[in-house]
């Protein structure tokens, strides 16, 4: 078993009462004066909600910002695909919400594996986000009087979710993108689209630059700065099939890990309960149906196994509304991890529906009868439309078929309260860090976190970093840059040189199967050990028989994919190792050995109330596990119950 270090982490959580920590932190932070801000350069990698909002906000403050993304435009980052909404503690519906309640729900939803102080700050700034976005022209849904509307989401008993039809992520991202483009026009942000970050440059222990590949020309480029913000999203595509965009990858985060940034809780993966089921071997990605559908849709399976009838032909008396049956208090609105496992349980027991039998029904019959088709169409029209396009079925007539799919990753690079990783000067924002969602993320909280980090946290904490360090000037001709560049170039050259027999897609699918089968919705020791061996073998196979065509000095999507896959093959082993070491069930991490009599997750707070932060020790070598103990002062540790 891996060595465990007893390092005591300095998470830099301020002293004092929970509600005053962030204010106190802001008071104590140093400032950079406006004239000096102009001399400081900041690199922001990624242009999703976290990256775009951070780059825009930092440029507004006067810093020189360089913004990188692999897409052809910053507007296309995958935040754009978020459907349902964004939480805030505005309490507009007057239903008893507050900063404290949002904080409480998020800590509980995360199954007591997040850092309390970070979550509290998230809840505190949530209201500023809504103000900011409304001022940018984000067309949030409104009531007839013109005030903002809310809807409910899983894991909460209040309505606190703001939304823009089923396209909330799109509208929030376009808001952040517009703020970013405004700064491009002032000259304070320089955009570098179609660039992929392939290494971090660390000079004297501080993150001072990045190496990127220009995806059009294939050339490698070096960029230096005073600090680096990594906003590169999650690692869900390790599973091959996920709701992530095809380009989403772990490469930037993983290369930072290899340079010394600890990777925290990589086994925490969110399997989203409402996705369109897999239809065949050719499947390239999975499509999410927003969780907001569970507001009005009812989830069920037939009472008898292998019922071949169409959903709308099965009478009520022969239906099992299993979420309402098992969790009467929250019903169809239980958190995602609970809903996903319940669907898997029914399908494994033989009650699944559809051709693959790996699906359950999400039925709008009753909602349409109650509110009318028009009302349902107004709320979910685009989602129904999308479902019909993909499946060829009309969800107004027959119940949707859904099944859980990999959606979000709660783990990520370890960060302190300032969002700084274990490498000074490397800040990690949004899904790429680990801090706010614990072992399970509640719906409508990812958008909140991305924007909180980017608009309202990083602009303060990076300023403090810059004000408290006198950094010597670095040149991209320094040895550290040359070494990192050569490292990235060699890796690509090696991949191109193998000229074996297997396509990157076929190896990626195989990796996905291994992770889904052994490290997916439920995990157990033997399976995880098997997976570890299989991943190592597959990695060896990659490095001996990958076949990538074309040259390095051109647009080469084959090479891009193979490079990302190579990193997933290293990362996948860490994910499995983390799942193996965490001998408890919590949130999205369900170990079959650790469950209650009712098959609910059984946490072990005595031994596992900590963050596992892994230190890289070389490919194939055992990483070192460091632990940050988690204390729950405001929200006392309790068993989650949604019954």
């Amino acid at each position, binding site marked *: 078993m891996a060595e465990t270090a007893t390092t005591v982490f300095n998470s830099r959580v301020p002293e004092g009462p929970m509600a005053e920590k962030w204010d106190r932190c802001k008071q104590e932070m140093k400032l950079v004066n406006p004239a000096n801000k102009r001399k400081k350069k900041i690199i922001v990698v990624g242009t999703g909600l976290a990256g775009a909002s951070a780059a825009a906000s930092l440029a507004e403050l006067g810093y020189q910002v360089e913004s990188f993304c692999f897409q052809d435009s910053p507007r*296309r980052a995958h935040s754009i695909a978020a459907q349902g909404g964004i939480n805030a503690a505005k309490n507009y519906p007057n239903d008893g919400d507050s900063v404290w309640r949002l904080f409480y729900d998020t800590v509980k939803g995360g199954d007591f594996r997040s850092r309390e102080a970070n979550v509290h700050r998230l809840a505190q700034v949530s209201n500023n986000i*809504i103000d900011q976005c409304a001022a*940018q*022209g984000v067309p949030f849904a409104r*009531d007839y009087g*013109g005030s903002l509307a809310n809807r409910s989401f899983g894991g909460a008993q209040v309505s606190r979710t703001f939304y823009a039809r089923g396209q909330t992520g799109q509208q929030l991202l376009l808001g952040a993108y517009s703020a970013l483009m405004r700064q491009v026009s002032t000259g304070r942000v320089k955009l570098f689209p179609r660039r992929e970050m392939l290494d971090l440059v660390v000079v004297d222990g501080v993150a001072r630059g990045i190496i990127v590949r220009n995806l059009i020309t294939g050339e490698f480029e070096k960029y230096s700065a005073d600090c680096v913000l990594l906003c590169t999203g999650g690692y869900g595509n390790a599973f091959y099939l996920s709701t992530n965009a095809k380009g989403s990858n772990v490469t930037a985060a993983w290369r930072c890990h290899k340079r010394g940034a600890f990777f925290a809780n990589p086994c925490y993966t969110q399997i989203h309960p409402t996705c369109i089921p897999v239809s065949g071997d050719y499947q390239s990605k999975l499509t999410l149906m927003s969780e907001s559908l569970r507001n009005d849709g009812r989830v069920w399976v037939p009472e008898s196994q292998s019922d071949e009838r169409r959903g709308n032909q099965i009478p009520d008396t022969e239906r099992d509304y299993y979420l309402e049956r098992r969790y009467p208090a929250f019903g169809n609105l239980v958190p995602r991890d609970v809903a996903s496992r319940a669907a898997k349980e029914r399908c494994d027991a033989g009650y699944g529906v559809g051709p693959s039998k790996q699906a359950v029904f999400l039925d709008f019959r009753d909602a349409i009868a109650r509110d009318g088709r028009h009302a349902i169409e107004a709320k979910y029209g685009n989602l129904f439309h999308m479902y019909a396009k993909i499946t060829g079925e009309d969800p107004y007539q027959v119940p949707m078929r859904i099944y859980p799919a990999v959606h979000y990753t709660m783990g990520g690079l370890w960060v302190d309260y300032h969002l700084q990783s274990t490498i000074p000067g490397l800040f990690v924002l949004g899904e790429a860090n680990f801090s706010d969602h614990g072992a399970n993320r509640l719906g409508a909280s990812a958008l909140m976190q991305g924007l909180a980090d980017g608009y309202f946290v990083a602009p303060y904490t990076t300023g403090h970093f810059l004000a408290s360090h006198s950094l010597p000037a670095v040149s991209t001709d320094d040895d550290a840059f040359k070494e990192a560049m050569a490292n990235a170039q060699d890796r690509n050259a090696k991949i191109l040189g193998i000229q074996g027999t297997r396509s990157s897609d076929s190896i990626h699918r195989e990796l996905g199967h291994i992770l889904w089968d052994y490290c997916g919705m439920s995990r157990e020791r033997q399976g995880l050990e098997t997976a570890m061996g299989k991943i190592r073998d597959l990695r060896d196979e990659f490095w001996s028989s990958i076949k990538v065509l074309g040259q390095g000095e051109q647009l080469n999507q084959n090479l891009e994919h193979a490079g990302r896959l190579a990193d997933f093959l290293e990362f996948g082993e860490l994910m499995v190792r983390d799942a193996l070491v965490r001998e408890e069930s919590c949130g999205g991490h369900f170990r079959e050995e650790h469950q209650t009599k009712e098959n609910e997750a059984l946490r072990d707070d005595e031994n596992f109330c900590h963050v596992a932060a892994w230190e890289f020790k070389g490919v194939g070598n055992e990483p070192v596990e460091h632990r940050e103990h988690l204390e729950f002062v405001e929200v006392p540790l309790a068993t989650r119950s949604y019954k």
Partner: protein
Amino acid sequence: MSETLDLTLKVWRQPGSDAPGRYVEYKLTGISTHMSFLEMLDVLNEQLIAKGEEMIAFDHDCREGICGMCSLMINGQAHGPDTGTTTCQLHMRRFKNRDTIVVEPWRAKAFPVIRDLVVDRSAFDRIIEKGGFISVNTGSAPEANAIPVPAHIQETAMDAAACIGCGACVAACKNASAMLFVSAKVSHLSTLPQGQPERASRAQNMVAQMDLEGFGNCTNTEECQAACPAEISVSNIARLNREYLRAKLCSYE
């Protein structure tokens, strides 16, 4: 029921922006009707790699119709034959056995081809840069409910804001005009109360940049609306024309 198709594809191959391009014909057999169009291209690319040929480059990312990255002319139609549908959401059940399918990149002066089916759409970003925003710095926003927005205004703004920036409007237009794209952003922001202060400069500056990028003029053919996967209405173009005229005649800027 899953059926399979045998298809002939004629795909535009172009090794680089300055190199000449040509159509290359490929035969595909046993394509499931449940596949998406891009999954069909994935299958073709796998076969090409197995044969030792370079894969066809095409832009794609979210594959759920929202990022705006995918961009193919399919049998002369931007994003293919279905209305309100991006290429990634187009499914093979839309085609018939033994069909010949012609696949091209967007063709417009302002969208130069980079390789095969990949084009450069950075002109759109440069247009947004000139005014596709509301100038509000982080932290300076008023309470969100301080400015009520009537539901119908919000709906109109949302209809326009749904643009995914894919460029199908330009590709479908015989003049390669970007009026639908520009008008969607101008409409989104100029209908909302928050967008009023910069209303005139926004319309003028975005139109000026659009012209500079080499997009053509609008001749009201409405092909753009027919091709738009986000179903942006040409009534936005009428609104843009009004906004532009209003700015030219009544603005102090």
